[in-house]
């Protein structure tokens, strides 16, 4: 068989490279366009509503009270609560699956965790209303079971599969020689895991955590169903067991009723902008951490 001429081969290469490059640029273009759209719809609010009113403590759009403080604190409460639950559980599960579990357990656990990732958030919400919220109310003798804690537990649950599967991949990518070296030097299994494997996989694990946190902060349906949506201001540790209203639930519940271009519409976009900034900050921080870790561990191992 005659091989393709060099020129045709070059042409193929050229087109494939072009295609990949275009795909990359398109993603960047989308992000830029979306940011532009968001800014265009949100920023005029600064001329329509006083900044002081926007930062107020009461959210009640019917009376033009657009204080977003309770919404921001609501989102933060749920996100922090869910992270406290999901990060240790998720990372430990990943370590167990990757480092400790016998291979048959691994083969059962991995697909199960991935199935957990496939549970639609509305189903999680139903579980929350029918099972978790009555349980929490009775166990802790709360006035109502529709609280930040209910949302945190369910969202933690939703974030665990993401954290597990991405961290597990990262742990798997750590070369076997690292583990062998540690064990060969007389390290115990625990010392190997804690001192070698997990640090070597750190950047992947941090990416996993940030993906999980990203899912939590953007989650809408579940929180709308189980957190009570009451725009309360935080009151110390007690706000964990109080109803709260998140930014996402507010946008989802109210966007349908607003007339395009109205004050309320712009405020909702402004909330969207704040959400966007939040996830951007999470990403940048995660990127900084994981990038720094790579160089340090590389230096260590070279």
């Amino acid at each position, binding site marked *: 068989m005659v091989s393709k001429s060099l020129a045709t081969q070059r042409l193929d290469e050229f087109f494939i490279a072009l295609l990949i490059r275009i795909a990359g640029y398109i993603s960047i273009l989308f992000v830029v366009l979306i940011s532009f759209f968001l800014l265009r719809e949100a920023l005029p609010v600064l001329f329509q509503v006083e900044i002081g009113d926007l930062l107020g403590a009461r959210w009640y759009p019917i009376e033009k009270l657009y204080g977003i403080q309770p919404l921001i604190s609501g989102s933060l409460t749920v996100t922090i609560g869910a992270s406290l639950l999901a990060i240790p559980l998720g990372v430990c599960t990943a370590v167990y699956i990757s480092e400790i579990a016998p291979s048959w357990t691994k083969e059962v656990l991995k697909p199960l965790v991935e199935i957990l990732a496939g549970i639609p958030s509305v189903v999680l919400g139903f579980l929350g*209303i029918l099972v978790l919220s009555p349980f929490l109310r009775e166990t802790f003798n709360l006035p*109502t079971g529709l609280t930040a804690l209910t949302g945190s537990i369910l969202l933690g649950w939703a974030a665990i599969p993401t954290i597990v599967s991405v961290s597990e991949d990262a742990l798997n990518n750590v070369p076997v020689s690292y583990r062998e070296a540690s064990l060969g030097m007389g390290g115990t299994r625990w010392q190997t895991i804690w001192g070698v494997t997990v640090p070597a996989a750190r*950047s992947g694990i941090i990416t996993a955590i940030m993906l999980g946190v990203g899912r939590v902060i953007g989650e809408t349906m579940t929180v709308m169903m189980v957190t*009570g949506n009451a725009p309360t201001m935080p009151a110390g540790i007690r706000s964990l067991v109080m109803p709260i209203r998140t930014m996402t639930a507010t946008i989802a519940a*109210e966007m349908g009723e607003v007339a*395009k271009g109205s004050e309320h519409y712009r405020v909702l976009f402004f909330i969207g902008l704040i*959400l966007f900034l939040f996830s951007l900050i999470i990403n940048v921080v995660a990127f900084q951490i994981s990038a720094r870790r790579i160089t340090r561990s590389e230096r260590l191992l070279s």
Partner: protein
Amino acid sequence: MQGKFSRFIIFISMISFSACQPITPGEQGQVARPSGYIENKGSDTMVNLALVWAERYRQDHPEVQISVTGGGSGTGLAALINGTVDIANASRRIKPEELEQAQQAGYEVREYVVASDAIAVVVHPENPVNQLTLEQIARIYKAEINNWAELGGEDRPIVRVSRETNSGTHVYFLESVIRLGNSKDKSIFSSDTLLLPSSEGIIAEVRDNRNAIGYDGLGYITPEVKVITVASEPDGEYIYPTVATVMNDEYPISRDLYMYTHEERQGALKDYIDWILGEEAQEIVRELGFVPITSLQSKTYGE
């Protein structure tokens, strides 16, 4: 790493934006449809009623397609203003701002009262409180009364449950109960009021939680919750909401349910609205626990 990171950014943005994107109705105005297609959207209180109407009507008029969706009165009216539906269902009157927006969009809006509805105030079946005055209910929702003991009940905190702010029921309850019909009163719901997105959510919370008080249209009340009798004055008679007590104006918390269309109705739309205002459809209103209209009312705005 770079590639992973940018993919990750996009993933995160998608998560964030999926929540932010409005379902913006087309700006190009109303699409020309065959006359046999009616798009009906709005009040969640009315969605079951509108569905049964559509089904019953289609038995005799199989050539007409009727699509019914909920979302809240505000949502339905916004869709009417944006020109994406033929009929908006609303459990409250159209607001002057909405009317203005409709006129700016080039629509003249027609209003039909298609049924009435009582709003029942409900509590957990084991709550010993049976009756409340309108003022007491208002004070509960304004967080001036915070324990059932103040109302002769058990020593339990009161958990206030309400529909979301885009619900016509919410707006009606705010104006007629919390502000007791006084338009100068600017009181609002206490900020710890649970705002639940559906009638089912309200019933579920009140059914399970002995601390809760909620309200909803009579058509949505199930036997699993207890309906409170309501008096408009402290020394007045406490009335249980029924079709009869709404029709003779005894029960104090009742309101009309509306349908709004663009301009003069015609073709299938005209026939459908006429049928709704007629006897057969009003019998369905009664079957579903709503209150039929006594006389035909219709009004055109913006002339």
